[in-house]
């Protein structure tokens, strides 16, 4: 990835709405309350109301590029004739997503690996090309269960972002990280002032203080993969998964999880007409690995917990040389029964 020279600017908090106003060629999204207590990325309806003071959103922003439902193609067949397939590649209007936490953008980088590295998924890429991510550094931990630093990230990490904003006293420090990001800043024109040395110092201070917030550590991250491999057959998996209810919260809300299922949605049975769709799936669901024969290689909750943890800390590391966990803490906070991936890694991922 080629890195352009970063462009650092300052924006008055009060001018955020004005900047957004100049981006009307794009659909704008920012974290907002979807319902009581439910933070989600919502279309910006009134820029003045965007405060960017959100805790961690319930959903990560992965849906912009990997929606829960993607139509792959439409099919139809007149009896006696050949079936007609009509590929439906997405062509969304360009969008800017504000307020993306660095852990989530790091999740995006991992999604990129999955959907572009070995196989270039046109659906993913079609959307990815149209979304610009404006990140926001976490001056305060947005969740009590943050552990980004334990998995190689940081509250001000820049990977996957086009722009990183850091809130300073009454201002935002806005750093363009990609050409797309620079363009975005350019649209703001006069609203942005060049960052001065004092500003840069303030940002560094803010970032340092953000990094200083205590997080739950994972010792020896480099040895976790090996340890997990060694503990593959440990009875502790079953024990730790005893309380697991087998829902999809941890995976659906994970910024890196990317598994899907493909099914046909029949619109009319005769003449035959329908859509082939790809929808999110979860390794925690009992039907995920179910064979037609009735055999299920991952029948137990323990084996499914192991799959989730090993995928993130072992298999992905082996295949792509990085963890597939960015420490957002959603799976820990939202697990109905307190299954805690950090505890699991501590217990089975240490030599």
């Amino acid at each position, binding site marked *: 990835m080629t890195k352009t020279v970063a462009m650092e600017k300052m924006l008055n908090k009060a001018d955020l709405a004005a900047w957004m106003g100049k981006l009307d060629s794009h659909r704008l999204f920012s974290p907002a309350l979807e319902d009581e207590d439910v933070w989600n990325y919502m279309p910006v309806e009134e820029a003045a109301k965007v405060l960017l003071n959100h805790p961690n959103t319930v959903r990560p922003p992965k849906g912009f590029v990997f929606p829960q439902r993607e139509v792959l193609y439409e099919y139809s067949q007149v009896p006696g004739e050949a079936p007609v397939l009509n590929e439906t590649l997405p062509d969304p209007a360009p969008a800017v997503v504000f307020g993306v936490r660095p852990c989530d953008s790091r999740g995006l980088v991992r999604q990129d690996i999955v959907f572009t590295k070995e196989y270039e998924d046109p659906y993913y890429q079609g959307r990815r090309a149209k979304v610009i991510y404006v990140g926001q550094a976490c001056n305060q931990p947005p969740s009590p269960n943050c552990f980004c630093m334990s998995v190689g990230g940081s509250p001000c990490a820049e990977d996957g972002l086009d722009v990183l904003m850091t809130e300073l006293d009454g201002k935002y420090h806005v750093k363009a990280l990609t050409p797309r990001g620079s363009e975005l800043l350019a649209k703001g024109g006069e609203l942005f002032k060049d960052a001065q040395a004092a500003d840069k110092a303030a940002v560094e201070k803010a970032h340092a203080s953000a990094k200083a917030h205590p997080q739950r550590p994972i010792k020896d991250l480099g040895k976790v993969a090996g340890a997990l491999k060694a503990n593959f057959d440990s009875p502790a998996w079953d024990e730790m998964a005893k309380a697991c209810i087998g*829902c999809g919260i941890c995976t659906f809300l994970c910024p890196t999880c990317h598994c899907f299922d493909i099914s046909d*949605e029949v619109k009319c049975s005769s003449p035959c007409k329908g859509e082939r769709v790809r929808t999110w799936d979860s390794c925690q669901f009992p039907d995920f690995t179910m064979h037609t024969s009735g055999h299920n290689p991952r029948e137990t909750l323990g084996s499914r917990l192991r799959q989730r943890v090993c995928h993130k800390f072992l298999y992905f590391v082996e295949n792509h040389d990085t963890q597939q966990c960015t420490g957002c803490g959603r799976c820990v906070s939202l697990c109905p029964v307190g299954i805690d991936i950090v505890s699991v890694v501590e217990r089975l991922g240490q030599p």
Partner: protein
Amino acid sequence: MIDVAALKAHAKSLLEKGSVRAVIGYRKSTAGLLAEPATIADADATDDLIFDPTCVQNLALYLVNDKKERVHSRSDDKRPIAVVAKGCDSRAITVLLQEKHFPRESVHVIGVSCEGTGVVDARKLAKKLDGKKALSVNFDGSEAFSITTEDGAQSIPAAEVMAERCLECRSAHPTLSDMTFGEAKSERALHAPFQAVKHKMKDEQDNRWAFWARQFDRCLRCYACRSVCPMCYCEECVVDSINFAVLPDTTADEKADRIKWIERSPARSETAMYHMVRAIHLAGRCVDCAECERVCPVNIPLRLLNTRLEMEAFETFEYNPGSDMNAPTLTSSFRDTDPNSFIR
């Protein structure tokens, strides 16, 4: 006030005597304030057991899971399993017994009374503490919780931070148990039963639809509500993508002929259908443990939906789920005097 030490001792003696395979109870979690369910087979580990207002989960679920696991493991250990059960949990166990899900002798119910209060609602508590992190919550008499934060302990009227369902609970004392800890307090519903449902019913129908459409629209289809529900013990759910329950003699046709009532897409129509099927299948079986609502990551008020028909069961059909393990179920019985005027 429940004597947790006595509870631990009872669990310990059960395991020491070998009269149960394991004890399902609560222990402190590393993930946050709320307790986590613990299945303890080692007598020494019973010291981890707790019982306080953070013990929100309905442990009846783990009896269902235990049954599934045992089928898989083909264990021939016939000893019962012990389970800590609050009033609502014990009602759930009663419904499971009523539906012959397991025999009475296979479970040793350690009843715990919520006495005058109930369990906390973590969201309410977080609001009440205004950002401060609660480290522990304990019963403080029959009307208050003692809450510890970094700033020390404070007593808060329980009603302010209690789960909604506890406020409407009609029987906080276990209806079925082999051993009970805590006092039976009969008068305790702080809110009128079905208050929330009745309030919602007053809305205009179009507004109600707007409300539910908004809820259904944000459903993730993570199925946490189904997974956490002790009554959702079907081998195969209407929303599952494939045939689950497969026996050696299941034919290819049977597998192919799986009816797709609901698509996997998180579209409003499909999500609405999923939640309504669940609600109708829970009619007369829902014990209002409200776990579905608690676990929902996007706060869909599922308790409101699922108690709607419980209200009918109770008020129209005089049926109270979890009160009698020998009664026929709500939908497999009828009375000549059932409502008829709604029929043309």
